[in-house]
């Protein structure tokens, strides 16, 4: 644990801009700067993220750390910064953790791979607007991992459920719905994430406001698939 004092922080600075200023000062003194991940700096890429006083992405609801501005703090405040902690997120350095476990969950089933030939007319596939809206809401997940960090069990349920829901609500996602649930949940557990016990911390800290309902949908899809789905055994030539 290292303590830094930073005078003259402008309230207009974003949190990461403040860290940039800190790092510039450290570099000038020949000290090691604080390592943290960032990319878009506008709340959409999912790269940035760490705990501020025990809360992923800090005190502002529905925002990432890059969207947090220093006007939300007071002169003299003490801010404890920690990386997202989970067994499945090994710490690389300082505030940067390895979240490729989330990529492997998506690779396990977070996609639609049905062959549609050339792109069909969007209007040819009827879908209720509410379903499309719910799917869009679930698709808003940026994969930052705040849900994992805030969960007392370090469960990736909200993340996995968001992707499962996004595709389960769409006509294109129906064909693979059961195998998607089985494979993604299996991957999630294999990575070492914990189980969901309905604590609800994830929804509270999610910068995109992903709803807990998605976990219910994942559980339903998973249960149904666990009972009914069987891996196909295609004879040669059918692949």
């Amino acid at each position, binding site marked *: 644990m290292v303590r830094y004092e930073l005078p003259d922080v402008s309230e207009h600075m974003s949190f990461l801009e403040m860290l940039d200023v800190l790092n510039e000062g*450290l*570099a000038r003194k*020949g*000290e*090691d*700067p604080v*390592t943290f991940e960032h990319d878009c700096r506008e709340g959409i890429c999912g790269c940035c993220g760490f705990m501020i006083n025990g809360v992923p992405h800090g005190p502002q609801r529905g925002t990432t750390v890059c969207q947090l501005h220093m006007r939300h703090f007071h002169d003299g405040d003490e801010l404890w910064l920690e990386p997202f902690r989970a067994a499945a997120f090994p710490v*690389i*350095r300082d505030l*940067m953790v390895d979240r490729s476990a989330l990529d492997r969950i998506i690779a396990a089933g977070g996609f639609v791979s049905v062959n549609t030939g050339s792109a069909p007319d969007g209007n040819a596939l009827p879908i209720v607007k509410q379903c499309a809206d719910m799917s869009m809401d679930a698709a808003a997940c940026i994969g930052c991992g705040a849900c994992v960090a805030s969960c007392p069990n370090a469960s990736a349920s909200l993340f996995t459920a968001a992707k499962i829901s996004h595709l389960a609500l769409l006509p294109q996602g129906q064909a693979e719905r059961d195998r998607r649930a089985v494979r993604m949940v299996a991957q999630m557990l294999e990575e070492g994430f914990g189980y969901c016990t309905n604590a609800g911390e994830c929804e509270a800290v999610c910068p995109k406001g992903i709803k807990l309902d998605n976990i219910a949908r994942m559980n339903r899809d998973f249960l149904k698939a666990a009972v009914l789905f069987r891996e196909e055994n295609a004879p040669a030539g059918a692949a």
Partner: protein
Amino acid sequence: MGRNAQGLEKAIGLIPGIREEFWRNVNVPGSGEELNQSLERAGRVADFLELGELICRDALAREESCGAHFREEHQTEEGEARRDDEKFCHAAVWEYQGDGTAPARNVEPLNFEYVHLAQRSYK
């Protein structure tokens, strides 16, 4: 974003000095043994110094205005871009010739088969 020969030549003259100072004077905290974002950033600045000079050379060599490349010496009376399709209807591909040596300009001609070259009017 208008470019002119004088400004481009001045930039090409200045950049090698900036680059030399960078390599002589850069300070990268930390080591190369672990993840080092300062090293990453220094590498990016080194790349920008190379790329910046190349962009200036390319802009100087293309004596016409085309798309986002606007040479003040090559514009119509209304201030629109004036292309020179006779001399510059090609892509310029620059080839590295070694440090301290100017890169070589290779040319890949552009052939338009179905869409014919014309001057667009923005009025």
